[in-house]
């Protein structure tokens, strides 16, 4: 049986790090992820773990040190948020193309500007094309569970890609909730030790990492990254199955909530899924067939699987917590709409924005989205795209 506790999302991730006891953590503090390296430092100071902590002068350095340690053969981690993630930009792409399975806890926070410390997904969404795996959590429990699973996914020989384990800043990272922890030994056995086939500190086989790859090699390198990303889908599901055996908790590429007979759906990611579930329950009580899909894995994007799950709905609202200013919607909206079109799904699909910079998204807001879908489908209301939910006007 697991251990009943109550803790914040940051505490949950720090606890998972303590259980994994990685070789190296290089980090620079930034709200709202600061607590993670702070707590890990405390574990190290107390002699509870023997992780080598590298205090660096910036996030560019923390990502560089993390990927350097990983290349050397260490299980290496870091944590960041917002502008810290943006400052890592250059190195994110290097870690991915060098196929270094570093794990990074991302506590999502709006990118400046205007300067803002609250949750949205603009930080990790900005890094969506960097070649990193991305997984998102609704609750502290999911942040903890995803974090434990991430090492097995990132380090799998068919994958070997870096991974961001994301949770919503303050909403999940700082709010204290009940949680069921897994016993230390079970976590250690599940995660295992990191034994890379090749690493820089192996004197028996010197190696080069990150050689120059100009036009004759660049596209082939990207193709290999794409294949690894595609392989990750299967590995994520396999790891989830094994995780269920030690935890009793089921995970997939996304979670479907009352989708079996749903006519109207919201697709959303992160903590706001909980709010949306309450709206689904309220509408179901009125006899409205509402359902919800919460995307857990955003990279690789489960486009075909989502399209299949949405193939029978009348209308779907895809909710983005990051603006992209394309005029064609946010990252989740544009990718999912493209997937729906490719799969020939004819449901009406709208893409709205919510919660930017930490703006509240309430059960009432979610209910309005569903009623709007009904109006567009049943009552001839004109389809309106790209609305900001909760915008003052």
């Amino acid at each position, binding site marked *: 049986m697991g251990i009943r506790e109550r803790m914040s999302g940051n505490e949950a991730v720090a606890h998972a790090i303590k259980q994994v006891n990685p070789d190296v953590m290089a980090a620079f503090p930034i709200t709202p992820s600061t607590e993670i390296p702070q707590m890990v430092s405390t574990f190290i100071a107390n002699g509870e773990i023997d992780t080598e902590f590298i205090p660096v002068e910036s996030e560019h350095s923390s990502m560089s040190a993390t990927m350097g340690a990983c290349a050397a053969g260490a299980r290496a981690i870091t944590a960041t948020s917002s502008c810290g993630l943006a400052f890592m930009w250059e190195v994110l792409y290097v870690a991915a193309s*060098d*196929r270094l399975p570093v794990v990074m806890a991302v506590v999502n926070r709006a990118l400046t500007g205007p300067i803002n410390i609250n949750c949205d997904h603009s930080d990790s969404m900005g890094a969506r094309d960097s070649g990193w795996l991305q997984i998102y959590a609704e609750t502290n429990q999911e942040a903890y569970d995803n974090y434990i699973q991430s090492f097995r996914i990132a380090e799998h020989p068919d994958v*070997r890609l870096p991974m961001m384990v994301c949770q919503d800043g303050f909403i999940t990272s700082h709010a204290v909730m009940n949680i069921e922890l897994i016993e230390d030994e079970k976590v250690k056995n599940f995660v295992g030790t990191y034994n890379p086939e090749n690493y820089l500190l*192996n004197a*028996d086989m*010197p190696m080069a990492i990150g050689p120059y790859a100009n036009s*004759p090699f660049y596209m*082939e390198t990207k193709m*290999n990254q794409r294949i690894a990303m595609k392989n990750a889908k299967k590995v994520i599901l396999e790891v989830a199955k094994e995780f269920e055996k030690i935890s009793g908790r089921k995970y997939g590429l996304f979670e479907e909530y009352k989708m079996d007979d749903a006519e109207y759906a919201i697709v959303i990611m992160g903590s706001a899924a909980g709010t949306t579930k309450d709206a689904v329950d309220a509408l179901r009580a009125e006899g409205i067939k509402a359902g919800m899909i919460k995307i857990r894995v955003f990279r690789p994007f489960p486009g075909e699987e989502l399209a299949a799950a949405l193939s029978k709905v009348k209308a779907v609202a895809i909710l983005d917590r990051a603006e992209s200013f394309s005029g064609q919607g946010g990252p989740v909206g544009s990718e999912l709409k493209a997937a729906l079109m490719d799969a020939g799904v004819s449901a009406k699909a709208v893409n709205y924005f919510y919660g930017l910079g930490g703006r509240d998204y309430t059960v009432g807001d979610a209910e309005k989205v569903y009623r709007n879908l009904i109006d567009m489908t049943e009552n001839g209301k004109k389809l309106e795209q790209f609305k900001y939910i909760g915008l003052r006007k």
Partner: protein
Amino acid sequence: MSQPTDVLEINEKSPYYDITPGNQIYGGGGAKKFNTGEWRTETPVIDWDKCTHCLLCTPCCPDSCIPVKDGKREDFDYDHCKGCGICSKVCSFGAITMKEGI
């Protein structure tokens, strides 16, 4: 542990599936197989009448292009010399001059 990579087998005709993950190259010394000296824009030339074989130039060469045999230096390894000119600067006897071109 992987086998040493045969860097000559990975070339501009290799399909993507023959390229190692992350383009990693296993086993050292791969650069020996390539004529990297073609990058050079200046070329060191030794005047054997002035050279005293003090051997200060050899350890200063960042590309190990000044071979030594039986206590005496030999001519430059022009296949790998990049023409940086450090050997010319450190030579106390003015025995190494940099000529323009390859």
